[in-house]
């Protein structure tokens, strides 16, 4: 890569010159040798007492500022009520207490920090010091010494010789943690068929989550989206969260001719279809329903299901369709379930 063409003596300007007049005559052993620590240079503060005094005043001023910050913090704590909202550009309508406490605390802390660092940078000696390193590993003599100690100890224990002791000790040690494992048994019940069943059963009325009243077919317009839960489930129930986590229902109405899947149409009522609101991927409440495409998207991981085609997965990480609930109308004209979901709702699992 050195392909200069100049053949003049002056061209040496184009090259790094060797140091200290060595050029040409003496061959240096290593031109890249470590030059050693450069001589220490003094700062203004080291030689000019006036500059040092100035630094001292700055540091003291910063520590003083910190004190003011803490006093301000206490003052703000006392002055501002906890619910006081003030408008501060550009932050908006913020809590006066949070804003003032945070900033005064920041001043108190930054005062100390900047002061200490400025002190270190301008007044403490900045002369670099060299310290030796030592290898981590032992020399041969120590290694041999330790080896002998170990062998002596091992021999005296008889560990290698008395195999019965060794084997039983391993056995005992391996078994004893089982006591701890067994203790974890009561962390929770066994799964049994808990994940297979929901509150839905034959004849259960679909209750509109918004109004807490039974849902009727004529309420549900084409293109609308409604959420329903089984009758009898109250928000105040002890197990409401567990039940709604499985039973939450999403009701849409499609034009019967738009439904591509025959079973979907059969399981619905005049184009009204009820699907589980719980995503089959990892259980987010899915319901980003696009009424023109009939696609429903999960906000967590973007699994997309086609509600006009048996809630088939058309994009994303979900592995199987949303379960559909078979519905009909009872004698009072309310929508009812014709049974529980045919398959478990929510995320897939081994026994599914």
């Amino acid at each position, binding site marked *: 890569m050195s392909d200069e063409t100049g053949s003049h003596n002056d061209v040496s300007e184009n090259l790094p010159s060797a140091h200290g007049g060595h050029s040409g005559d003496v061959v240096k052993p290593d031109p890249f040798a470590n030059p050693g620590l450069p001589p220490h*240079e*003094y*700062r*203004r*503060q*080291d*030689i*000019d007492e006036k500059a040092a005094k100035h630094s001292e005043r700055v540091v003291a001023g910063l520590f003083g500022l910190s004190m003011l910050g803490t006093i301000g913090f206490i003052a703000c704590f006392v002055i501002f009520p906890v619910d006081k*909202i003030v408008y501060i550009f*550009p*932050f*908006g*309508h*913020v*809590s006066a207490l*949070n*804003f003032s406490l*945070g900033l005064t605390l920041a001043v108190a802390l930054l005062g100390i920090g900047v002061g200490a*660092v400025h002190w270190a*940078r*301008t007044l403490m000696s*900045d002369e670099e010091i060299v310290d030796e390193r030592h290898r981590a590993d032992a020399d041969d003599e120590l290694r041999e010494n330790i080896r002998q100690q170990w062998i002596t100890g091992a021999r005296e224990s008889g560990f290698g010789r008395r195999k019965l002791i060794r084997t039983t000790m391993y056995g005992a040690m391996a078994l004893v943690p089982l006591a701890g494992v067994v203790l974890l048994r009561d962390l929770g019940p066994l799964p049994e068929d808990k994940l297979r069943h929901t509150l839905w059963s034959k004849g259960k009325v679909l209750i*509109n*989550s*918004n*109004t807490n009243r039974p*849902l*009727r077919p*004529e*309420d*549900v*317009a084409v*293109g*609308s*989206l*409604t*959420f329903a839960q089984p009758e009898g489930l109250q928000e105040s129930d002890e197990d409401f969260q567990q039940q709604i986590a499985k039973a939450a229902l999403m009701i*849409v109405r499609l034009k019967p001719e738009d439904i591509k899947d025959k079973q979907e149409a059969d399981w619905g009522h005049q184009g009204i279809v009820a699907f589980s609101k719980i995503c089959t991927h990892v259980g987010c*409440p*899915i*319901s*980003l*329903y*696009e*009424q*023109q*495409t009939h*696609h429903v*998207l999960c*906000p967590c991981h*973007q699994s*997309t299901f086609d509600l006009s085609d048996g809630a088939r997965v058309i*994009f994303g990480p979900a592995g199987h369709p949303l379960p559909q609930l078979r519905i009909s109308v009872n004698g009072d004209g309310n929508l009812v379930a014709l049974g529980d979901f045919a398959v478990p709702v929510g995320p897939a699992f081994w026994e599914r």
Partner: protein
Amino acid sequence: MKKLSARRRHPLAALVVLLFALAATGGLYAALAPAPKAQADDSAQSLAITQGKKLYSVGCATCHGTSGQGSTDGPSLVGVGSAAVDFQVGTGRMPAQQPGAQIPKKKNIYTQAQIDQLAAYIASLGPGPVVPTKDQYSPAGADAAKGGELFRTNCSQCHNFVGRGGALTDGKFAPSLKGVDPKHVYEAMQTGPQNMPSFPDTTMPQDAKADIIAYLHEVDSSSSPNPGGFTLGTIGPVSEGLFAWVFGLGAMIAIAVWMAARTSKAKKS
């Protein structure tokens, strides 16, 4: 209220609603229309429809057909109701610049009077949701906490927990609700514009809609408090993480560079 909703299921209810709708539209028009022409209500109504049809032929007929029957470029407008017109035109979504999966909002070029005329014309094509009155969508007196629960059940999955909007499939999105006229929020729930599903009065009663509007007013108006300070868009941890990296860690590194930098030497000056 309960009685009313029970009666709404009566077969004649649609007719009554239609009558109300016509009356309401006419009334609204009468209230807003320029005063000089003192005419009877029904003639004002028919005048509005005539005017609306003219506006329609210019701005809408290319896609929606000469009499609102729809075409390959635009859906039928029979039965969408005046509320849909008021929303779509009032927010500037219609007339669309080009057909597409999602028509974004833009500057509205019509006056409210013209929108009302258009709405009157479309409403005359078939019964549909009616432009709400102020006391229907006013947040005053509504229960914001109830609205919050309804919002989290029905709306936040697309529009985010304080209505900042979110992504849908294939580039479509649920728009931000910040600064949207409560009337338009109400109409959107009623009519289900574009890919948004509708939330008709039968499944989400009027007072529930008002509760939702009250909740939005409480959390997402320009005077809503954000006690913790600057909100970073209230879109969740992504913006918080970005902020922590850029400004949090950025500040730490700047300080570290300052601390490790050499203090100026006496010789240099």
